[in-house]
């Protein structure tokens, strides 16, 4: 599977994120000859333990989430960031979780936007929106380098692409930048060869950073 980096939009101090950023980013991709391939969508669910006795709090994870990825429609990915756990499962695992009734999805977010082909790269840019809401929680960008599956071997070319991207976007005078988070995938038991589980981990970390640093704003 090709290596993928997941970046997120970090607004400057005192500014918020909006759909305008997404519009600027997609126009920027098109301005550097990105060929639009269509829409893409992913879903992320935060799970909370269901406790019969609310006054008794066993030590259970507060960062248990599940992700459905656009390019793996028959799979589902669980991440417990604090425990450095990532699990790939069939999509039917969601039915099992419903039957168990031990955890319920309390917050769900959509990632949706457009996908582009840019030479040997595939780029997706999308907004992060809570389900049943119009408020944009953030902007994410996936950059995939199609010829290579090795994280190490692709590092240089990915860094160069991100630099070109930053340069192209800087001409639009936006109040912020796309950030790539350096991750130690080894801590999650993942190897150098890229897999969808790597994507799951990246989304979990991106969301944690986004929640900590990005103020939500309406459309």
């Amino acid at each position, binding site marked *: 599977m090709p290596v993928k980096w997941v970046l997120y939009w970090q607004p400057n101090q005192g500014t918020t994120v909006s759909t305008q950023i997404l519009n600027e980013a997609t126009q920027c991709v098109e301005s550097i000859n990105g060929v639009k391939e269509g829409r893409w969508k992913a879903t992320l669910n935060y799970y909370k333990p269901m406790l019969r006795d609310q006054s008794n709090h066993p030590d259970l*994870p507060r960062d248990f989430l599940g992700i459905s990825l656009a390019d793996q429609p028959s799979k589902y990915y669980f991440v417990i960031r604090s425990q450095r756990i990532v699990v790939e*499962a069939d999509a039917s695992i969601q039915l*099992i979780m419903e039957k168990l009734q031990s955890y319920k999805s309390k917050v769900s977010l959509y990632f949706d936007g457009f996908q582009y082909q840019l030479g040997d790269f595939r780029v997706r840019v999308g907004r992060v929106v809570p389900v049943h809401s119009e408020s944009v929680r953030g902007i994410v960008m996936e950059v995939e380098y199609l010829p290579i599956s090795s994280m190490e071997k692709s590092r240089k070319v990915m860094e160069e692409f991100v630099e070109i991207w930053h340069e192209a976007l800087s001409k639009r005078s936006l109040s912020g930048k796309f950030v790539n988070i350096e991750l130690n995938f080894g801590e999650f038991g993942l190897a150098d060869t890229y897999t969808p589980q790597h994507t799951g981990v990246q989304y979990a970390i991106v969301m944690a950073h986004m929640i900590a640093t990005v103020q939500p704003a309406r459309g």
Partner: protein
Amino acid sequence: MECVVQGIIETQHVEALEILLQGLCGVQRERLRVHELTLKSIPNLGVVSSEVRLLCDLDQQPEPTWTVKHVGGAMRGAGADQISVMVRTMIESKVSKNALRMFYSLGYKLDHELLKVGFAFHFQRNAHISVSVSSVNKMPKIHAIDEAVPVTPGMQIVVVTAPATPENYGEVAAAVSSFCEFLAPLVHLSKPFISMGVVPTAAAAAASLMSDGGGTTL
């Protein structure tokens, strides 16, 4: 959802049963070596207490594969009583190897574990039917599969299952029932938890199968 029946057979008759199944199913048998872990939720977790099974297929190459399985309650009522197989909800999902660690983190504890060793046939006969014949083994120490010993020495369990939907479970149940009649000379198959014991004439049936390799009509 699945239709399921099970029964017990003496180990000395398993070879004869294999010959019979080989003739009936028309497919190659597959080795079965599955480590089954049953996990239960800790007190206070969940609307109700819950149980989930993790199955590790030890025979897969290059490394064992894992499946999570949730078995629900059986269909009840007058309609269910008239069906000779158990119809129950069942959901499976393949998972990566970290699943056990994940469930431990989520507040599930190991309730018990078993090692099932034997063989299985998977074939199509008006339904997608699976027959497994295995010894059920327990472990003296946690996860010590190499030290597993039979729970009931000299006896093995036969399980026949077929996936079903709310729309077709009647036909699937009929297909399973009909197939089980062919196995009646060697093993009584019935709803789980309703044991019919061994077939008293199994020895004669087995001898007949072994003597001519399954050519005799029982």
